């Protein structure tokens, strides 16, 4: 029978990933001066478990690293070596390369062998140091009692027996065999010599022999241990297993007393440890039994067949194993997709039943409204499957903060809040990079050097908060530091120098938005960490692509807060449907600030720049949707239609449409994967009446509206 091991690989990968994360968490929390013994044990156990699994699944590179790691951890765990910060650093680096190796096996990611070699060398050298510096326990002087000896060194004894009956020799061999590995050899025709490899002491051997013969007649000498022999391994040593007693004995013991009652031989053979109570009489049948093992085999089978209905309980216990299951994301997505379809079908039914007479169709209509409720509950329940706690992201940061702060010579206290807040899996994976960037910025540019902080009357350690929480239908994630804050003058000067539209009259929040411009960086020195001018614009773009927004609050000398607001999920969207000609478009509600019907006087034509609309004193660019998509509208005069005011990326514009249709939840269908990417469109949805409607990409629309204006200026 062959068993396919590959089916357990995935389990091992998941497990190893969890163990590595746990190891890192413990390492970051460990108090180097006074490490908690239980924590050290847990760290050791993680390395140990990974090693065991890696070895079992043939991942030798990981086995090798964990082996050295484990050895080093073991000496520390046992108190033979004091934990130092170098150790923690080395352990963290090993975690990194193990993760890299794991990803290599799992996803075929590239493994940087140089780094692996470096870390292995580092671990090796630490291990060497530990071996030379270790506090070697003083070996106890030869008067070790059997108790102390039990778990200790292995001895090989040569036991010369006086002239005794063959059966006594056999009985003794069996009894002494309980202590270790025994062999019998004739000495001079009448006498025998036993060779016993054991951890027990001479006195134990004498005690056992004294049941059969006079101890004074015994001659026991200690020998060198034969090469390759280990304690008590009856067989199988080369195969990687061994038994401490003759197999037959274990097997016979394995039968329950009840089964034994049916058997042919029922000598009571106590298990190891109770030697002193065993006399020669008891030992003899045990030896006999060994010789008669095969017949027992035969009866055992019959007996077992008769006894069937016993095993109910254990089945139940096995079933109650775990309260969660691992399901592939594809299955969940398929489920979500199907629920999406169901929501659409339900909306169709609802819409079609709208025109029915409520008196005539009362029962149908009440069923439909029940269907609506059930569908909504189902949808919520299914969506929640994809939700993951923010801890998935937050847990990466303690390590990063520690490393960065160390590199920059800063002191940072890292505090997280709301790690249990849940967010859609798709979003949570995409938020990692922008968040990493913001955290990096906060440490690099935000938090000052300890001396500067002390001079400013602050504590030497800067504080970095990472928090997540719900606000309406959004999740708000904030990165907040108590550092120097953004420097308004410097940002303005830099912006002007780079030719960005900036002026002293701008409000603070407008000034802060300037740092999101491509290529913008005010850092005086380009550090290893950040400030190379790529970044904030990318952060902004990523978040906008997720349907989110970034806000900055900052006060000079008090710190900066970057606030990211994201929709809870990407699969369902609160939309505003608008009509142009015969087409219906969906605007994500988050971008809509208001809608209005302007007076003809509020519309101004700017030569070559299109139109603007005056809203409470402000002039906003006007985007006629019919022009964007080249369709025939009902109205070409903005004052006859409706202007929807949109806001994205700090820019505002008025979208000119024919009419507002209503507000509804829509299931987002990806246009890219079903068709291709279309500029200005972020997706599509199926409406209640079965028609397809496009969801507008508001940010892109606002950007292209400016291009449109420019183009018309040139033509």
């Amino acid at each position, binding site marked *: 029978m062959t068993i396919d091991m590959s089916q*357990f690989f995935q389990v091992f990968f998941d497990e190893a990933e969890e163990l590595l994360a746990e190891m890192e968490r413990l390492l970051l929390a460990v108090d180097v001066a006074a490490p908690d013994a239980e924590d050290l044990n847990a760290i050791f156990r993680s390395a140990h478990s990974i090693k065991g699994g890696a070895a079992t699944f043939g991942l030798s590179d990981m086995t090798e690293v964990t082996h050295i790691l484990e050895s080093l951890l073991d000496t520390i765990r046992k108190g033979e070596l004091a934990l130092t910060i170098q150790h923690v650093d080395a352990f963290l680096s090993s975690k990194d390369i193990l993760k890299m190796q794991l990803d290599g096996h799992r996803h075929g990611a590239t493994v940087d062998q140089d780094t692996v070699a470096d870390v292995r060398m580092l671990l090796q050298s630490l291990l060497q140091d530990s071996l030379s510096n270790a506090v070697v326990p003083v070996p106890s002087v030869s008067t070790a009692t059997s108790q102390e000896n039990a778990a200790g060194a292995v001895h090989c004894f040569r036991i010369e027996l006086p002239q005794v009956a063959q059966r006594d020799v056999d009985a003794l061999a069996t009894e002494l065999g309980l202590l270790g590995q025994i062999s019998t050899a004739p000495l001079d025709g009448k006498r025998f010599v036993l060779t016993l490899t054991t951890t027990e002491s001479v006195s134990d051997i004498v005690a056992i022999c004294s049941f059969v013969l006079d101890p004074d007649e015994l001659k026991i000498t200690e020998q060198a241990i034969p090469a390759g022999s280990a*304690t008590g391994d009856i067989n199988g040593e080369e195969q990687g297993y061994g038994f*401490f007693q003759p197999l037959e004995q274990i097997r016979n013991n394995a039968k329950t007393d009840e089964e034994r009652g049916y058997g042919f031989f029922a000598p009571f053979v106590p298990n190891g440890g109770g030697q002193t109570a065993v006399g020669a009489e008891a030992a003899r049948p045990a030896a006999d039994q060994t010789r008669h093992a095969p017949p027992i085999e035969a009866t055992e089978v019959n007996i077992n067949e008769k006894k069937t209905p016993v095993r109910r309980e254990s089945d139940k216990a096995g079933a109650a194993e775990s309260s969660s299951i691992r399901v592939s994301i594809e299955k969940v997505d398929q489920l979500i997709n199907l629920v999406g379809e169901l929501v659409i079908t339900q909306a169709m039914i609802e819409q079609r039943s709208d025109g029915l007479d409520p008196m005539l169709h009362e029962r149908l209509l009440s069923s439909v409204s029940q269907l609506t409720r059930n569908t909504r509950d189902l949808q919520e329940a299914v969506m929640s499957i994809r939700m993951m706690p923010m801890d998935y992201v937050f847990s990466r940061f303690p390590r990063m903060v520690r490393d960065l702060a160390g590199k920059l010579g800063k002191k940072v206290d890292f505090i997280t809040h709301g790690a249990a807040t849940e967010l859609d899996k798709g979003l949570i994976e995409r938020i990692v990079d922008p968040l990493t960037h913001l955290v990096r910025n906060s440490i690099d540019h935000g938090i000052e050097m300890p001396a500067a902080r002390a001079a400013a009357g602050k504590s030497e350690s800067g504080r970095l908060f990472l928090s997540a929480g719900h606000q309406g239908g959004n999740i708000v994630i904030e990165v907040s530091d108590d550092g120097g804050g953004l420097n308004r003058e410097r940002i303005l000067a830099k912006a002007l120098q780079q030719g960005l539209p900036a002026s002293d009259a701008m409000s603070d929040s407008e000034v802060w938005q300037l740092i999101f411009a491509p290529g913008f960086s005010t850092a005086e020195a380009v550090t290893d960490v950040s400030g190379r001018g790529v970044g904030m614009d990318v952060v902004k773009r990523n978040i906008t692509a997720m349907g989110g927004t970034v806000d900055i609050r900052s006060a000079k000398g008090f710190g900066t807060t970057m606030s990211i607001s994201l929709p809870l999920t990407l699969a369902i969207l609160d939309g505003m449907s608008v009509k142009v000609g015969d087409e219906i478009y969906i605007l994500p509600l988050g971008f809509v600030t208001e809608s209005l019907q302007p007076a003809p006087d509020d519309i101004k034509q700017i030569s070559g720049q299109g139109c603007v609309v005056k809203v409470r004193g402000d002039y906003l660019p006007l985007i006629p949707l019919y022009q964007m998509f080249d369709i025939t509208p009902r109205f070409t005069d903005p004052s006859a239609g409706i202007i929807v005011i949109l806001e994205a990326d700090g820019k505002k514009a008025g979208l000119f449409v024919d009419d507002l249709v209503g507000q509804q939840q829509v299931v987002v269908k990806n246009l890219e994967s079903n068709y291709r990417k279309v500029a200005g469109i972020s997706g599509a949805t199926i409406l209640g009446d079965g028609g397809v409607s496009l969801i507008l990409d508001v940010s892109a629309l606002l950007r292209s509206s400016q291009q449109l204006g420019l183009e018309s200026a040139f033509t």
Partner: protein
Amino acid sequence: MAKTVLAVDDSSSLRQMVAFSLKAAGYHVIEAVDGQDGLEKARNQTVDLVLTDQNMPRMDGLSLIKLLRGMANYQKVPILMLTTESGDEMKAQGRAAGANGWLVKPFDPQRLIEVVKKVIG
């Protein structure tokens, strides 16, 4: 009737591998995630063989073996240690605690089945 093996290991991949292999070989397998869990599961039912890891949270393998040996119905049940350490010290400790044998990790499923067959048929 299938014999029951209690497999105690904190590593779920190892445990699942053991369970799957032994089930494929016709045994009934009860899984336990650490020594404590193993002890509780052993208490509630009869098993024909115990396979236990040594290094586990809450309760390690040696403690489990000692406690099992203290229970009337577990004095003679074969117990094998599954361990990455095949050193003499570990074996001596295992023997002192009352184990009947050991099987060094890593092992492949065939080896495991072969050993289990040797012990409980």
